[in-house]
């Protein structure tokens, strides 16, 4: 599904050159679940943006089903994002003026889905995250957990191949965190998605079958035999967010 070959990303910060990614090689199969951890500024979010086609590498290739996202023109890259990749952000990134239902519908707009079908699919997606009755509410009328559920529904409504989550529980309290993690794991299991999540939360990281750690732009991958499998996906999240995970 994904193959990253020698991906580098360099930024300029004033006169200083920052190597956000320094030759990352990574392979992900369809249905894989990867959690990325690492210190702040280590390159976690940059790697996620490369996977999501939100940014282009300075060098290297980002292959998604054999297509090099790095080489695609902007228009086609936008289409790939619209069709295949669902995003969940730490700050939910909902449009504040649109209702939950309309926010979910925004993901179907680029696909040219007709309004009636858009509405029914958005309602269905909201039902699947347990917010069927809150579809007419504005984000400001929903709790943080509910807003993140709307964001998850928005990510999944287009039936993507990939779900990319950047600190999805970062702005939630512990009980909300558990709810969202369980929801994401359930959906991963249900839809057979390739699921990549960036998190600082070690308790969540421990549940992942593969752990990637990025430090100074370099990645190390570790298999986790104790991880939650699709069969154990609904188990409660152990530990707390402060527990470190060794890469």
């Amino acid at each position: 599904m994904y193959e990253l070959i020698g991906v580098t990303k360099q930024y300029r910060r004033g006169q200083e050159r920052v190597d956000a990614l320094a030759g990352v090689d990574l392979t992900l199969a369809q249905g894989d679940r990867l959690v990325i951890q690492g210190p702040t500024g280590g390159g976690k979010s940059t790697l996620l943006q490369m996977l999501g086609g939100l940014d282009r590498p300075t060098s290297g290739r980002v292959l998604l089903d054999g297509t090099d996202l790095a080489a695609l023109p902007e228009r086609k890259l936008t289409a790939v994002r619209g069709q295949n990749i669902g995003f969940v952000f730490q700050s939910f990134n909902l449009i504040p003026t649109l209702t939950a239902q309309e926010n979910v519908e925004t993901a179907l707009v680029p696909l040219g889905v007709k309004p009636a079908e858009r509405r029914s699919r958005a309602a269905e997606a909201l039902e699947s995250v347990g917010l069927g009755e809150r579809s007419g509410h504005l984000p400001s009328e929903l709790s943080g957990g509910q807003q993140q559920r709307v964001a998850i529904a928005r990510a999944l409504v287009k039936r993507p191949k990939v779900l990319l989550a950047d600190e999805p529980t970062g702005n939630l309290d512990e009980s909300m965190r558990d709810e969202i993690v369980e929801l994401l794991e359930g959906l991963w299991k249900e839809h057979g998605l390739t699921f990549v999540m960036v998190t600082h939360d070690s308790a969540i990281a421990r549940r992942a079958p593969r752990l990637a750690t990025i430090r100074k732009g370099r990645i190390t991958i570790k298999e986790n035999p104790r991880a939650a499998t699709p069969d154990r996906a609904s188990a409660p999240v152990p530990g707390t967010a402060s527990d470190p995970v060794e890469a």
Partner: protein
Amino acid sequence: MFFTYLRRELRRRRKAALVVASGLALGIALVIVVNSVSSGMNQAQGKVLESLYGLGTDLTVTKAQERPADGAQPQRPRFEFQGKDEGEEQSSDRLMVQGFQTLADSTVATVAGQPGVDRAVGGLSLVNLKINGEFARGRIQRGQTQQGPPGAETGGNGSGIGGGSGGGSGPGDTVTGGGAAFDVDSFTLYGTDVTAPDLGPLTTSTVSQGRTFETTETDAAVAVVDSAYAQEKDLAVGDELTVKNVAFEIVGIATADRGQAAAQVYLPLKRAQTLSASAAEITTIYVKATDSTRIDAVKTAIQKNVTGTTVTTSADLAQTVSGSLDTAADLASNVGKWLSYAVLLAAVLVAGLLTSSAVTRRVREFGTLKALGWKSGRVTRQVVGEALVNGFIGGALGIAIGLAGAYAVTAVSPTLTAELGSTGGMFGGGGGGGRGGMVFGGGPAGTAAGKTVDIALTAPVSVTTVGLAVLLALGGGLVAGAFGAWRASRLRPADALRRVE
């Protein structure tokens, strides 16, 4: 989704939307009011000029002012009264050409033959002056030392109205009594070409009673009288009016559309020429051009090809307009125009800044939409759409305010005064008037008296003005949205998301 998103966004930012729309509305309202008032000014000026020219006349041709020969006196009327017995009435009835300058009526055909001239008709402007009265002799009373024979008398010197102060008498004699009492009756006449009722001096008036001349009445003893003169002299349709001992039947009463009438009495041209002993002579040629946009070219052609004439266009005449109408027109065309465009420009700039600032605040929003697969064009359309709606709301408000303003101006109808200065060769309207005004020493042509016309200002709003307002509103919205849209279109989703997270 486009409209839902747009509506919600405008509702969320309604204060900013209101500021943008209000600014545009103010600018557009000013443009409408200034344009309509300016248009009203033009109409008012046109009406003022029409009151001199007559409807349909594009320019007039008169005889050019001639320099008197060395030592010669300017031509002026001269009256001679002979010494007659005391109490015997003396009178003079003169019908004179206004300004004493005439053109041969063959000039009409010459002018009509010039390029760009559609039609030309001649007119003869006259003044009728009747003086009627008698002299009374003064009586001399001899002084103590030098008694004359009883009953000796001497007449006034006749050199001035009011009597002499004695003469032919010795020291110590005094003169008592004596003098002269004369009535002066003066009125203006215009000989008009009855075969061309739609061109010439009578077109400045509307026949309110009776009828105008018929085209066959080229030499008929009929007259049309100005309503003010008719009222003063108690004349009505069917009455007789005597000019130079010739009786004319009054067939119509004409009322000047505004200001003073071109003359107090209108006669068929041929009759007027005969009465004033000005056969085949005219004072003014009224010219209608084939193309109203080429009047200057026609003027040049006539000046070049018909020598000894002065050609006056409405533009020339407009330059002589002064008074509050001229001041207001200047204000409308200068200060008003620039003020309205300055306000509009400021409004567009403010709208642009607010839109741009809104884009800055919504970076994450647009970045998210792009991450979801929204193309740059769709995001741009959303921003431009919002700016256009602001422009549309501003335009609608501005048009409503502008129409209300224009309506208010028309409802109030402030009266403006136009003062028309004298112009070389132009006819001078009513001239001496009929209230005993003296025309002694009447100057030569080209010194026509100034004329004052009061006119109510209106502010007509044309479809073009409303169209301009709509274009300005949408253009303003587009310009305001363009910068924000450009910024939104260039946003890279990774940068947009990184900047706020």
